[in-house]
């Protein structure tokens, strides 16, 4: 069997597992949410209202039905691609996700770009000149950013660049007082470019800078350390020594021989980081009031908005599975030794 066929078969088998995985995840979320104390009625009414009013709202939200009926109804809707409607606002969950997900993706992509540029540059320079000044600073930077609590770093950056210097807005996604560009992609920066209005581009860009820089800098430590360690390891291999002895230039050794062999762990780490960011940039989203999916999920959990939580978890899980399959395929293409 050719490698291409192997990969195709592998991809199909992984994608075939997706529905089963989603069923397990959604069932788990369904059960866990119902086990958790409190329900949407408690979250909506707080300590207001008498038991009669609470019961009437419970009936209206369909929470009075037996759990098994609720579960079967939920699965039935899910099979038909319906994620349900929010118990709190009656808005379709799909629409909630379609508003929040692009914001998270925009932030994640920019943060990963920043992290890659800073992290891999520092890692590369550290590996090529081991024990030098850059290597030392890179190590401190790597450990420092890794150890920094994200919310603390975010608040420091806010105080410095938004409050003290006033260079960038303190939070939100678009300037108050400006009309949003018409939604084409959901990525505000991209939509602003498409609107061809410089004030839109400027507004969207300036709001993106602080959250993406914070997230990017925090992630860059992991990237720099992983590249540095892998590259250092590869540079000590026999085939690098033999390349040196054949008189191949240092630059060529690095670019043609060493770097491609460090790509696999790097790709894996980058992929996993991207995947985790889809649902995991919560603290940054909270601090910068970035209306992303993690913030939406947190609010939905607080409100015990079952359909919204279930919908968001399914969306994030699907993205992570698809991304991990894509990474596997990329690795198989890059590394001839890998077979499935």
């Amino acid at each position: 069997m050719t490698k291409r066929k192997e990969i195709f078969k592998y991809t199909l088998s992984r994608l075939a597992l997706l529905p089963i995985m989603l069923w397990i995840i959604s069932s788990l979320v369904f059960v866990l949410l119902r086990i958790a104390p409190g329900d949407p009625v408690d979250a909506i009414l707080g300590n207001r209202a008498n038991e009669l009013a609470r019961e009437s709202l419970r009936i209206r939200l369909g929470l009075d039905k037996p759990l098994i009926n609720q579960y079967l109804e939920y699965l039935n809707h899910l099979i038909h691609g319906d994620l349900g409607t929010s118990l709190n606002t009656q808005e379709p969950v799909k629409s909630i996700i379609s508003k929040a997900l692009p914001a998270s993706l925009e932030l994640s992509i920019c943060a990963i770009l920043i992290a890659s540029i800073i992290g891999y540059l520092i890692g590369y320079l550290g590996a090529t000149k081991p024990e030098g000044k850059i290597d030392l600073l890179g190590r401190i930077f790597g450990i420092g950013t890794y150890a920094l609590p994200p919310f603390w770093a975010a608040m420091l950056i806010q105080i410095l660049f938004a409050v003290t210097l006033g260079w960038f807005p303190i939070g939100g996604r678009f300037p108050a007082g400006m009309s949003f560009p018409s939604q084409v992609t959901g990525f505000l920066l991209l939509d602003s470019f498409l609107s061809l209005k410089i004030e839109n581009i400027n507004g969207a860009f300036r709001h993106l800078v602080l959250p993406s820089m914070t997230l990017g800098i925090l992630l860059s430590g992991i990237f720099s350390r992983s590249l540095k360690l892998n590259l250092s390891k590869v540079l000590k291999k026999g085939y690098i020594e033999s390349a040196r002895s054949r008189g191949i230039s240092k630059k060529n050794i690095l670019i043609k021989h060493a770097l491609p062999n460090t790509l696999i762990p790097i790709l894996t780490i980058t992929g996993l980081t991207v995947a985790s960011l889809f649902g995991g940039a919560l603290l940054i989203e909270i601090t910068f009031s970035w209306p992303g999916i993690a913030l939406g999920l947190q609010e939905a959990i607080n409100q015990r908005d079952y359909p919204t939580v279930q919908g968001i978890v399914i969306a994030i899980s699907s993205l992570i599975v698809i991304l991990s399959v894509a990474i596997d395929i990329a690795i198989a293409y890059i590394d001839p030794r890998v077979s499935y």
Partner: protein
Amino acid sequence: MKISNSLSQLLKASSIILVLLQFSCAQNKQRETIVVASAGKIESLDPAQANTLRTLQLLSSLGDTLYKINKKGELYPVLAKDLPKVSKDRLTIDISLKEDITFHDGSQFNANAMAFSLRRFIEIGTLNYLLKDKLEDIEVLEDFVLRLKLKKPSSSIKGLLTSVNLTPVSPKSYSQHRDKFNNENFIGTGPYFLKSFSSGQQRIQPYMKYWDKKPLNKGIDYINFNNSSTLFGAIKSKEVDVLISNSIDDMQRIYLSNMVKKGKLKEGKGEAIEIGFITLKSNKLPLSNKKIRQAISYSIDRKLISQQVSFGTRDPLRSIIPPHFHQKSIQPWPSYNPETTRKLLKEEGFCNSKVLTIPLTFRSNVPADRLFALTWKDQIKRDLSDCMNITLNGLESTTVYKQLAEGSFEAIILDWTGDYPDPESYLTPLLSCNLIKQEDICIEGEAVSSGSFWANEKVQSLLKRSEEIDGEKRLNTLIKVQELAAEGAAYIPVWIVKPKAWSLQNISQPEFSRDGMIILQRLKRD
């Protein structure tokens, strides 16, 4: 060479950043609208769904109510032509409406529109029980006359008719939303119309055909941040013009007040509408013993707690009804007196090597509650360690609300904001009981939902009586209810929180209405 190349690239990058910054500065200079910031997202602008202060704040500028309450506490007509006419048997209320008022979609406001909005609220409203419990039917008598038929006499319904939740919406625009929320639109009769909506920011602009005084500004950009630090930073960096205080940490409130003293900001205060109190579960020993509850109510040093928790910004409170409703100083709950606590506890067999332990629950996601619990615990340790001891337990608020009616908490710190500006909206939700057992234990009713399980026949009859009378008589009756509640000591009011707002120097001082909302149309650039 390398250095000069790097420098030139650095200069290029800096100039790009500078150009971008110039754009932003230009934007700030050109800002004509007023940017108002508050905490938390606004998920829905439907008055039937609205249950957060931030949403009600915005809705109060987009819509009008039938009535409002003035600074003297009197009802005055807004969309209504005159005061409600109550029948002799107090079971029907006729409301004449102003004519020539239009909704933002151009359609006319009339009795049909008002009836549509009230019926819709009863049908789908999150807080529909407020109206459902009182209203039997809604009739349209004439084009501009509405009749409300009541289930039983209700004086408090007048206060309820000032509720922002009952602001009328256009039947024409809401024809597709009779039985479902219209989250991202609002078509009402208010001084502003909704220009754009997203959960993080909303823009409202003056409605040119508004029937009453037009707004003093060119529009409001209402933005929502998620946390106190961001809100605080936003006003400090002048990114926003006005900051509403509902979720600002006490520490930051102090800092903002200092900025006011230095003349850097202006501060507006509203009437206090949120009360903080302790509920004691009174259906099981030891707290079913009234003397022990009374002893506890003497043990709270409100002044110290307010100082420690909020640097004195939360006023100590010794009544359930906020003081501005009384129009005179009424403090039925006793002041701090550890000696009386010791005396009462000794009478019940404590203090002589027997220490009363009270497990106190607080909502872990409410920072002030946590500080309150810690301060009170320490204060008791300081003053009454030989008689009393407090153990602490933090729980997330949704979990707390779920378990309140189940009687899970011996003592718990809670807060309450009346749903409408009437003393009844503070008393009934805590004290009302439908079924009483053994003189003072509530089996069914609000007292169960609120976790105290405390009831009193006299209180119930006075609450009922208060719905059948008006004015001074009614107020005195409600004061009597409070006195009985203070004696029962199942609730211990601790503090009251005044809504505050801060504005930049070039913006007018924020003014509040009686229901704790900023009057956005009065904000203007100086």
